């Protein structure tokens, strides 16, 4: 009888390799901006593009690399709503609650997402598939209420569309 092979080992190795590759990319980003002034926000944009969020380790590397105090890097990372210092779900669903969307029922849409995902706003689902956030206007007010999932945008979202939107990203799970 052959030993049961679960394949975990391979997966762990792959994850480690992925992680290492991300740090190589980070080093390239830092090199690109080194020695220039006013580049912190653009560098963090790119770093988050690689990691999906800004782990402490990444903030430290950016601070060292760009010769900016860590406190300032952290200050910037926490000031802007684009940057995340806690891990995110694979997809971020944002329901717009800007005034134009609000008057067209954005709040009810948000509540529906909360119900369907069983998580509160600013929370992440247990399986880390989704993070639920709000937007304060994405400049598509003519199509209110607006929901974005990553780069995808859904307009005029009605309550019964909510499960459909979620299903698109779970592959029917």
């Amino acid at each position: 009888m052959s030993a049961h092979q679960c394949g975990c080992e391979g997966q762990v190795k792959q994850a480690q390799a992925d992680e290492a590759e991300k740090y190589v990319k980070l080093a390239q980003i830092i090199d690109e901006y080194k020695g220039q002034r006013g580049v912190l926000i653009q560098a963090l944009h790119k770093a988050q593009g690689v990691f999906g969020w800004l782990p402490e380790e990444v903030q430290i590397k950016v601070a060292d690399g760009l010769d900016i105090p860590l406190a300032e890097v952290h200050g910037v990372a926490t000031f802007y709503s684009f940057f995340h210092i806690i891990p995110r779900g694979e997809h971020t669903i944002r329901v717009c609650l800007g005034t134009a969307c609000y008057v067209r029922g954005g709040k009810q849409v948000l509540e529906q997402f909360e119900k369907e995902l069983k998580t509160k706003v600013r929370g992440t689902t247990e399986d880390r598939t989704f993070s639920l956030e709000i937007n304060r206007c994405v400049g598509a007010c003519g199509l209110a209420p607006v929901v974005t999932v990553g780069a995808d945008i859904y307009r005029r979202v009605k309550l019964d569309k909510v499960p459909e939107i979620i299903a698109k990203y779970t592959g029917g799970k």
Partner: protein
Amino acid sequence: MPLYRSHILVCTGTTCVLKGCTAVQSALIAEIKRRGLENEVKVVETGCLGISEKGPVMIVYPEGVTYCQLKVSDIPEIVEEHLLKGRTVSRLVYTGPVTGEVKPAHPGRQKEQRIVLKNIGIIDPTSIEEYIAYGGYEVLGKALTQMTPEQVVAEVKTSQLRGRGGAAFPTGIKWELTAQAKGDNKSVICNADEGEPGNFKDRLILEGDPHCVVEAMIIAGYAVGAKTGYLYIRGEYHQSVAHTEKAIADAKAMGLLGKDIFGSGFDYDIKVFKGAGAYVCGEETALIESLEGRRGESMVKPPFPPTQGLWGQPTVINNVETLANIPHIILNGGEWYAGIGTEKSKGTKIFSPCGDVFYPGVYEVPFGITMREVIYELAGGTKSGKPFKAVLVGGPSGACVGAESMDKTFAYEDLAPGAGALIVMDEDKCIVDTVNNCLKFFVHESCGQCIPCREGTKRMYEMTKSWTEGQGEEADLALMQALTSNLALTSRCGLGQVAGTAFATSYKLFPDEYLSHVVGAECPTGKCTMTNGGGKNNG
């Protein structure tokens, strides 16, 4: 180069993308190929055509027929009927209000006067050649080779153009101050941080005609003696970033940016900076902080940017729409521009009616137009057909205006338009609930530096929230008014200063609605759920 007999402009604006224009576009290209028309028909991408409502949208030139709500399955029919047989597919033709050269079927559109939006939906925003073919960069040549910087500034002063970002400061004077200030590394900043709910005009300009803004920024740089221009675009505007980056690269390749532009000895470069999601960064001093790589916190003024801005150097900062007027002013002269509009408000203004209106969208009209014309004729009145209740002019930071102001005119001396958002509410909407939402926006977006704004917006939010839950007390109303004026007087920047405006103005208009929430624990529209069961008085 093939000579095309038809051009098809497919809108790839943000909202059309969401509606699936990418698949429609690929299907179109494939079908054109399949029919062997690729040397006769050219497909180009354009930015938002202002009718996203009906997306995906495309316009077929030279006929100028607009097709809307397209599906991939409609494409073979359009290619077969329209492109091969020359017959319009009438079931797909758009008959609502349309931008561009297309004949307006919607009478309201005729009230438009397009100067800034002239190219939108007409040219391919990713093609510098097309911009040039439509007269682009000619004005830049004129300014750089035939005018002194002082003459450019004088022309802008004559036009009496005022800032379109909300504060309405005279642009010519701002440029003059910057030109006269001492500094060897001046900058021009284009403020494209458009973040206030209800505003989406700057996005339309950057997506649909990025070269116009680039050209204006170069002219501004020449006029004030700047070396660098910065385009600060909000992070959510992916397509604006993409189009402007391409525009800048193409302009560079043609020598319209860089060293010795038009042999005038003028060197100038433009950089794009992506914001990271903070509304306060639209405020000019916070924007400069952000450009310098820090938290976007507003600074005390003075000093003002024209004397001490980016990196401590004199800096012009202008809104996208303000700048987009510049090439037209230089081309036609300040006198021409000053002939449009009213006594004190010159030129056109772009409005973005949204909320409960029939045709939300972006409309450019001369100053002096009445609110009635914009809301009823251009935007088609309320979507539900129910009576109009109120409108937030400029967005959450603006005044709440009711039906009694319908015949007021949009002008700085009458009804100030703010940045142009018109968030319309019909009679079903609860004012208290909406104002509570506006306050939530300010709580979230306050940079937190000054206590009146940080704590005041929070208290105002909590108080209005309690009203929507039937937990208010009569004394609250006086407290809210005190907070409103307190914030107006003591906040460092505009965000805190105007946070109470929507409340104060709507309270004047709808005192009974407030009283019934606060004292009677009842919401007349039934929108608010009163947690104490509601109806304090009758129960």
